[in-house]
């Protein structure tokens, strides 16, 4: 077990290093002088020199990279050029709201996907299964920002059940303001989860231990709930892990529609403002998050299923 954990962590290291290199390289890949582009009309020679020094761009590249890496390890990403404050605390504050949105969204998508996947697998190739698959095809093709607008149109503008945008104060209003965004992301993620889960339930249904349980005379319901579902739980964790990047991608777009002050809306506003230090920091944070989540998924997988460790 420990050998497996060690091996898996060592495997993740080269990818982590390349991710830091990508985030670091962003500012150097800009055609032209990044400082001039960032300062735009305020680019006097003195201002350029000051900002260049501030960002450490007057140092040799390897030194710059090490400073970037050292800063990142201490969650110190320097200052935002436009917000004029330290980037680390802004990210930490916004990460909380983004995380709440992600958790809520995953719950919604599981509530949609899990029952549908089970029904669809049990009634394979029957009308119910076709209906579920049709739902998943349509949900997959829906632009998430469009789904969000439809929900706003019906539930916020017409029925006035939820706010159209922004974050509410107090626990109840906070949850209310996250509801429509979470349903939007839930519908975006559900078809992807649904397809993989359905396949895994079908596979489990034909496994030998399920045959054995049936042969022992257990009721179909007991076989399904005790044996099949427990095994599909492992599949569910894996499927969620594999799709965490897809999930975050959806959240980045949806935060902008609902004007939620999370990391996704920060990324988009920083790109529009050409605030490269923030773009670098966020690229790194998002990349590392996905790697760490996948690592945790693999480790929990090993804990749940002893065969993996072999």
């Amino acid at each position, binding site marked *: 077990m420990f050998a497996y954990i060690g091996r898996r962590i060592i495997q993740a290291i080269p990818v982590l290093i390349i991710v830091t290199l990508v985030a670091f390289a962003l500012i150097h890949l800009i055609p032209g002088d990044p400082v001039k582009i960032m300062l735009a009309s305020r680019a006097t020679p003195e201002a350029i020199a000051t900002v260049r020094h501030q960002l450490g761009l007057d140092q040799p590249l390897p030194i710059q990279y090490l400073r970037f890496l050292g800063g990142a390890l201490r969650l110190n990403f320097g200052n935002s050029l436009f917000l004029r404050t330290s980037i680390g605390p802004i990210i930490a504050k916004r990460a909380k709201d983004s995380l709440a949105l992600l958790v809520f969204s995953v719950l919604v998508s599981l509530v949609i996907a899990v029952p549908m996947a089970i029904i669809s697998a049990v009634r394979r190739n029957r009308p119910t299964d076709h209906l579920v*698959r049709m739902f998943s095809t349509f949900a997959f093709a829906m632009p998430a920002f469009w789904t969000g607008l439809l929900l706003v149109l019906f539930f916020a503008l017409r029925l006035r059940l939820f706010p159209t945008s922004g974050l509410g104060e107090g626990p109840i209003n906070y949850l209310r303001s996250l509801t429509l965004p979470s349903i939007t992301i839930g519908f975006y993620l559900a078809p992807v989860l649904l397809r993989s889960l359905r*396949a895994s339930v079908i596979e489990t249904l034909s496994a030998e231990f399920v045959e054995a349980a049936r042969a022992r005379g257990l009721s179909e319901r007991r076989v399904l709930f005790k044996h099949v579902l427990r095994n599909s739980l492992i599949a569910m964790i894996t499927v969620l892990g594999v799709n965490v990047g897809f999930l975050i991608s959806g959240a980045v777009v949806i935060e902008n529609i609902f004007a939620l002050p999370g990391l996704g809306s920060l990324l988009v506003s920083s790109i529009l403002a050409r605030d490269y230090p923030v773009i670098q920091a966020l*690229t790194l944070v998002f990349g590392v998050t996905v790697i760490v989540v996948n690592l945790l998924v693999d480790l929990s997988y090993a804990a749940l299923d002893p065969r993996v460790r072999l």
Partner: protein
Amino acid sequence: MTLWLGVGIVGIAVILAIGTNWIGFTNPNEQDLGASLLAPSVAHPFGTDELGRDILTRVLHGARIDLSFGLITTYVSLVIGMFLGALAGYFGGVTDTVLMRVVDTVISFPFIVLILAIASIVGAGLLGAYVGVLVVSWALYARLTRGEMLVLRETQYMMAAETLGLPVRRIIFVHAIPNLLRANLVFSMSDIVLNILTLAALSYLGLGVRPPTAEWGTIIAQGQKYLRTAWWISTLPGIVVVLVGVGFALIGDGLADRLGEDVTGAA
């Protein structure tokens, strides 16, 4: 059945996109301020926007940008990814290790974050979207192809080809690639949908195609301001996007049934 339904939907969309000027929907930016924010009618089946522009004309012209974006990005990535994946899987060793670490890195970013980061370098616009999506989407084809190649390499006819001393180039391109193509083609159908939705999302965020150019994302975004009074501006173009996406997805399902491939896990 599924396959032909999909081909029918996509076919109609492509024909309408190509022929939009011949069937009378010529100018997507023609304004008629006397006819602004008109609800759907016979004259304007999708209604008009705040400048009196006909939404259906804009959607049809947008189809040209979105469909060509989806097809070009998807199949350029497929060719690049398949080629690199086949090499990695066939040769193994250092080539394989290096390539797969790069693939792992590309996949570790939430795709929209990497695309946005690239768009921030190249500059917001259609070109930025093309570069961003291309840099990201070859990786899944490479991973898929490499996995298939590892299995294929052990088959008897591949070993026979090697025993016969055929040149490596011939073994890979003539014997392996046709067999690797199936899974990639099936996956490419859902990839087209993803890439079109990505362009629309980028444009919606103001980082892709810029208004007043008619593109599905910009049309939907511009309607957001009028959601309360003119619901049709955002909703009807969205339905077209969904239908086209369903068309491609149906082709993918149909191909999967026919070719016996299941690559739903690849995404």
